[in-house]
């Protein structure tokens, strides 16, 4: 179960805004996290607490394929991202490094910055504690579920290599 405060932003948040290329050579998620979203909201890193939830409207994570983007969000302490839709490379990258994300337009509509959410990743249930509302995200397709259950792509691929 995830419980955290929401930081909500708009549409088409791109990877250059999430983590500019000039920081791409920083080696750890924590160092990347210190610059997370600074081109959009330079107060984000100061506000965000470990376990908080990042929220956006459509096409979150569009732009470059840099995996530094989900790493920096994880490094900033975010436990889950909820959006109306995600850009496809970002979606893959996040799943691969086991950063949970949920597509749920209703939850995005019904939530504001500062609200507290409780999220059950297995069922896709999202509860807005502040507003006393419940939303449900579509469950992951079986294949993605398998990937997540294995603990991300590296662990999944290792299982496959070992079984060969």
């Amino acid at each position, binding site marked *: 179960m995830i419980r955290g405060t929401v930081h909500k932003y708009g549409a*088409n948040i*791109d990877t*250059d*805004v999430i983590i*500019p*290329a*000039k920081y*791409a*050579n920083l*080696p750890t998620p924590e160092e990347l996290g210190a610059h997370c979203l600074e*081109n*959009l909201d330079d107060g984000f890193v100061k506000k965000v607490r470990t376990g908080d939830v990042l929220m956006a409207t*459509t*096409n979150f994570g*569009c*732009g*470059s*394929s*840099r*995996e*530094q983007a*989900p*790493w920096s969000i994880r490094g900033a302490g975010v436990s889950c991202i909820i959006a109306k*839709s995600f*850009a*496809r*490379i970002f979606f*893959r*990258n996040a799943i*691969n*490094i086991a950063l949970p994300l949920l597509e749920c337009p209703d939850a995005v509509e019904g939530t504001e910055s500062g609200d507290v959410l409780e999220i059950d990743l297995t069922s896709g249930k999202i509860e807005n504690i502040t507003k006393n509302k419940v939303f449900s995200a579509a469950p992951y*397709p079986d*294949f993605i579920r398998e990937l997540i259950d294995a603990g*991300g*792509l*590296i662990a999944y*691929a*290792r299982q*496959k*290599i070992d079984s060969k």
Partner: protein
Amino acid sequence: MTLVEKILAARAGLIEVSPGQFINVNVDLVMAHDLTASIAIRQFKELGAKNVFDPNKVALVPDHFVPTKDIASAEVNKNLREFAREQQIIYFECGQKSGIEHVILPEKGLVLPGDVVVGADSHTCTYGAVGAFSTGMGSTDIAVAMATGEIWLKVPPTIKFVYSGQPGPWIGGKDLILHTIGQIGVDGALYSVMEFTGSVIDQLTMDDRFTMANMAIEAGAKAGVFAVDEKTLEYVNARARRPFEVYASDPDAEYAQVITYDLSEMEPQVSCPHSPENTVPVSQTAGVKIDQAVIGSCTNGRLKDMAEAAQVLKGRQVHPSLRCIIIPGSQEVYLAALREGFIETFIEAGAAVSTPTCGPCVGGHTGVLAAGERCISTTNRNFVGRMGSPEAEVYLASPAVAAASAVAGEIINPEEVVR
């Protein structure tokens, strides 16, 4: 089936695939560059892999921060070089026969029709120009592909774009793709393949097709593809060192959507800050003063782009109030441009010409923007902070529009400069 469905079925060892299906696909080439390879190498080791699946099918291309711009990028390049030597994989050393990844891989015949190519770079979709299925992924995906030669994919639906009419002068691939993204939006083709067809496409040069496929990701697409025709075959036959397979969409292939554009009255297009979807005809941005013009990148750093810029700059002068930076996309393009006299034209016009690199496109070096500056660029992204300061502004356009604007000191239709 569509062209892409046929490629994916073949590489997955299946007779048929349909959109939405999860499949495992064999890849023909795996690529990473200096900003993405370090994480890929780390994950490769994490995976416990000893060797790449096939050294001839794995390529590392340092191009973003080369020639190395600082100590950190030098360390990263050193790490890549050592990994490449140890694994004996394809490595493009700065200088040599190198350049920007998406310019050189097709140029060297490393991507061919019918291939499945994955790269740790979002513009890997560029190779759809030669009738390959190619797509960008993150470093972890790439690490797994380097180790196993396989990748998991969800079969994407295909949107067919049909371009008709008689476009006017100075209209090229860049105008078509900027117009398209302006119409459908930056998530207009999310998770889908864009298949580019129609009489206008048949007339386009290969370099224009690379420009269009390159920017498919800017509409959220997984790939952008073109059918293989005589121009494609002429291009690849001169470069291929292995056999390849040509696939074509069936006449009754199913498309998620068919979108048609008549380009007869179209002006050159410009995408305004801060999104590629903010496309307008050049006349609507006319008079916008600029501080810098950049011509190059994996979008417009090929020979046709250099020729177009030279045609505009020949016998003219870059406006004294701005910098014009021209960067050929590869050593091969650079040399050809030199032999054609384009480089001389650029330097005489007052442009700064640099060795092939991504440089300013990603705000790395060789033309980073200060706060309040405005740039017209032939690159593919005008996001906030993309080319430097988050308070700078970037307008995207073709090489002709960028070169003409460099002469005028403000955004202008090339027709008004070259009469």
